């Protein structure tokens, strides 16, 4: 038998393409006759457009057109009676401005430089109205919608009666999606009712779905290509107004058009992690048994959509606590709509909860690891279900040993190295382990190679590589002979890549389609091949890409060759069953950090990181490790450096570039040990793999702020922890 492929540290199947420039991202495509677009964006934050004068722009060299609400061609999907403002921003629909940076026109020219220059010549006049971009100024207008149910288990606010308790407020600022690859799209109407797109997306099918209604086209008339994505982290889970603007312009001008956003536009046009103000009340008995948790959160959204996420959910289920209540509200600000950003709401919530646990441990004079162990949930306290698998205690133990947790001083400010204060901190993270529905096709070729297709995405984690490994184990065919193709809307249906569920969902479809392929091969063999003729399909074994019956072995390829079949294709849809009603399924992470804090300058340097993942079977230890490190780097940004600053007088971002919005650089990123529990989840899916993308970041910021407290005795509850906050 071949060595199992799942669990190996296999190189990425597209690694060579990526490092040699062979991978073609959306912007690398160049349909014949393509034009370039630049956006004209609003400098006001609320009001109306009173006039657009494009005369000079239209006269500038190379300009094809300037499209705005004044000359937009009819958009079938826009013809909705009484447009509900909560439907999302309809680009170029009317003269309304909801937020600063909202596109008001798109300029198209035959070179990028000409488009960008002409965009500066478009004169737009506005009637300005009062705007609000500051959450503090709008807290009294916080609201809940019907998806935001309060939660209560046991008694509300029970923490107030606890012998040891605390209440604290935690704030995170807006964090902006800043992957290396800028967002955008190439839109090409091949005929008036046939649209081809090169997109940056986490789901080609979802792009198709969104546009189907807007342009009232059948799915088959919309083709979306997105084979490579240069980092998305949630920003490409939906289609944005700037993409629709490009498609509209391409329809009007009847030429393919490419739009690539500027870095500045990334702050306003592709979502962001919303700002959140959270309050936690937490109480315990003197020996550390939690008696009550109250978690309240207010986050911002846009004027035209309610963006909600799972900010307060971790508090409901992480610890065995009899009394828990949560409350979550939104504040509508004159900003664009937020979107999921890695770890999404759970990461926001985990910062508050896992900081509060640390604060409580300090009050109890107890090791925070000990406090977590005392309150470990053996069954899911929210759903009242057993876990499909949970190795959190082992994860705590592994992480503590690796970082040298015993060196931590319970009293803050006691350790020093070379003039720097030393602190240790930890936190936990949790994220639902999902499994959706996906379809895959498997095509076996007469040369023995296998091609599997599914309209999945790879926004970076190495999806194709993992799928090849899963298919190799399911079929026994060597990894080198298997290809997994993704990112094309013509492929079988797969959900968007998000919520750490691709391996679980698409991987299951790959596994199942391979099993069906084997079944089909068995059927062919028993029907037509003499050596297998008298056998039942169930009695045929499969090994190393061969059919086996007693001493007879036949290559899969030979089955096709003998039948003179060029190929054999099978398509299978796979989804979760009832098991999701019987078990609570979660991935868990544990983060440990050792930090240095300079006592004079307030500078924080993370010296060592240990992150442990309980994510079931690890399909590929190499890509999984990278996945965890990537999440940790995002967490370093959340903890120490990232904050989008708005001048509320103008409602405008002031640090909207890579120099002033600080994503962590290599020098901020210390040695990171990634450890895996790597034990198969017996329930969730055939591979036993839970998700990993989100837990890598969830909780991480608290591990840093807890370490900073341990180093200095100063508790920073407002992220990021910049030097000024420790002076």
């Amino acid at each position, binding site marked *: 038998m071949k060595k199992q492929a799942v669990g190996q540290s296999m190189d990425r199947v597209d690694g060579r393409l990526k490092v040699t420039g062979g991978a073609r991202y959306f912007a690398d495509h160049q349909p014949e006759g393509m034009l370039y677009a630049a956006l004209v964006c609003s400098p006001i934050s609320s009001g109306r457009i009173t006039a657009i004068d494009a005369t000079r722009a239209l006269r500038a060299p190379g300009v094809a057109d300037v499209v705005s609400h004044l000359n937009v061609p009819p958009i079938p999907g826009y013809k909705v009676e009484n447009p509900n403002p909560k439907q999302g921003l309809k680009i170029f629909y009317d003269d309304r401005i909801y937020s600063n940076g909202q596109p008001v026109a798109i300029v198209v020219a035959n070179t990028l430089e000409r488009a960008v220059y002409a965009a500066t010549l478009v004169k737009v006049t506005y009637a300005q109205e009062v705007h609000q971009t500051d959450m503090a100024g709008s807290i009294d207008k916080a609201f809940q919608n019907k998806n935001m149910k309060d939660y209560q288990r046991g008694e509300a606010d029970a923490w107030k009666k606890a012998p040891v308790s605390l209440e604290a407020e935690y704030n995170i600022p807006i964090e902006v999606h800043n992957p290396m690859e800028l967002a955008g799209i190439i839109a090409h109407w091949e005929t008036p009712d046939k649209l081809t797109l090169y997109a940056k997306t986490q789901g080609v099918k979802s792009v198709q779905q969104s546009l189907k209604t807007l342009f009232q086209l059948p799915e088959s008339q919309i083709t979306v290509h997105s084979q490579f994505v240069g980092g998305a982290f949630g920003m490409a889970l939906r289609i944005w107004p700037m993409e629709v603007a490009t498609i509209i312009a391409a329809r009007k001008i009847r030429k393919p058009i490419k739009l690539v956003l500027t870095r500045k536009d990334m702050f306003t046009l592709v979502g962001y992690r919303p700002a959140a103000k959270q309050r936690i009340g937490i109480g315990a008995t003197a020996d550390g048994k939690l008696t009550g948790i109250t978690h309240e959160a207010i986050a911002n959204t846009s004027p035209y959509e309610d963006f909600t996420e799972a900010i307060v959910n971790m508090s409901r289920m992480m610890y065995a606590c009899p009394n828990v209540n949560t409350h979550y509200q939104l504040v509508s600000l004159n900003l664009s709509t937020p979107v999921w950003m890695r770890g999404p709401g759970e990461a926001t919530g985990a910062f508050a909860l896992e900081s509060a646990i640390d604060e409580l441990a300090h009050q109890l004079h107890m090791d925070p690891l000990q406090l977590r162990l005392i309150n470990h949930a053996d069954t899911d306290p929210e759903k009242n279900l057993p876990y499909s698998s949970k190795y959190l205690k082992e994860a705590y133990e592994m992480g503590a040993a690796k970082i040298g947790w015993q060196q931590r001083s319970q009293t803050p400010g006691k350790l020093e190295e070379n003039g720097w204060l030393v602190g240790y901190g930890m936190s936990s993270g949790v994220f639902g382990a999902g499994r959706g529905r996906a379809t895959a096709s498997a095509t076996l070729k007469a040369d023995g190679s296998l091609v599997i297709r599914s309209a999945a995405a790879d926004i970076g984690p190495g999806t194709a590589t993992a799928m090849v490994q899963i298919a190799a184990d399911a079929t026994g065919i060597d990894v080198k002979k298997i290809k997994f193709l993704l990112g094309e809307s013509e492929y079988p249906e797969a959900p968007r890549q998000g919520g750490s569920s691709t391996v679980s969902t698409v991987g299951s479809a790959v596994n199942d389609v391979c099993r069906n392929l084997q079944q089909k091969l068995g059927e062919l063999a028993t029907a037509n091949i003499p050596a297998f003729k008298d056998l039942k399909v169930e009695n045929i074994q499969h090994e190393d890409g061969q059919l086996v019956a007693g001493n007879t072995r036949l290559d899969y390829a030979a089955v096709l060759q003998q039948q003179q079949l060029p190929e054999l294709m099978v398509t299978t849809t796979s989804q979760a069953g009832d098991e999701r009603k019987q078990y609570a399924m979660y991935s868990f992470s544990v983060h440990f950090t050792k930090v240095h804090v300079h006592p004079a300058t*307030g500078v924080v340097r993370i010296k060592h990181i240990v992150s442990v993942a309980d994510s079931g079977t690890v399909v590929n230890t190499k890509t999984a490790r990278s996945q965890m490190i990537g999440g940790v780097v995002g967490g370093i940004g959340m903890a120490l450096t990232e904050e989008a600053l708005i001048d509320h*007088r103008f409602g405008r971002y002031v640090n909207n570039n890579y120099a002033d919005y600080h994503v962590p*650089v290599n*020098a901020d990123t210390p040695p990171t040990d990634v450890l895996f529990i790597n034990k198969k989840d017996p329930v969730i899916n055939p591979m036993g793999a839970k998700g990993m993308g989100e837990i890598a970041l969830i909780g991480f910021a608290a591990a840093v702020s807890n370490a900073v407290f341990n180093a200095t005795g100063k508790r920073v509850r407002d992220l990021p922890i910049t*030097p000024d906050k420790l002076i």
Partner: protein
Amino acid sequence: MNQFSYVRPASQQAAIDAITRDSSARFIAGGTNLLDLMKNGVLAPEKLVDINRLPLRNITLNNNILHIGALTLNSEVAAHPLIKTHHPLLSQALLAGASQQLRNMATTGGNMMQRTRCSYFYDTTMPCNKRTPGSGCGAIGGVNRMHAIFGASDQCIAVHPSDMCIALVALDATVLVAGPKGNRRIPFGEFHRLPGNTPDQDNNLGKGELITGIEIPHSPFTNHVYYLKVRDRASYAFALVSVAAALDISNNTIRDARLAMGGVAHKPWRLHEAEKTLIGKTPTVENFRIAATVATQSARTYQHNAFKVPMAQNSIVTALQKAAAV
């Protein structure tokens, strides 16, 4: 970006002529700042005069005076043996700035001439007296965490962003200038200006004048020097505050001292009074604290940058400790 013409003269005189003839013309050296300003629409020169052909890329030592040509790259200066031996403070300051990629493009003259990083200056939809005199100062009453605590005016509270210049002002460098009216020398401390009522003028370089190089006199500051830069991330960020500290210590007594700060004023901020408190003293933390207190006496803060005063004091003490190795 607007359309512009581009010339690349081979001689200094031709470069000066080219710039003098055309009021909106600009020299371009590494382009690392100028191009960003043009892309943002802050500057729209109709002509670029590329000076990279001029023979101004050199580092020499004559009669104990170190000469650096204006086109010498930041990375070359930082790594040069003469600089590392005679003026290690300058090497440290350069290496604290930007990134290696930028330092490989950025020139000595361009670094001195770089504009402030004030966000309002870069955003043409915002008020800014430096960009558009009379339009108001966006930073006053706005986001001003990065802004000045010394020498600002009610017209402008921007800071000069350079690290290199902080070392140069501490080392008493001289700026060598050639212009339509001939050559002149400007002491480094008088090169950059305070904003006053003319925040649009960063420095005292006249119309048509070209920086040809700088000179650094012989200095005793080869052992006890330290450039401390406090910033929001470990690398590739502008200073919240920075301190260039240089001490000449013998027999446990400070013979001479230099202190300058970055990130705190519209010009590289030399701390003469604080230096005086150190001379003749022993290098102790107590004496450094006295210097730090004197250094920050004239500080004035705005809504978001009050932290810079204690940060400046602590950083002065830390930099002096590092320099003195105590």
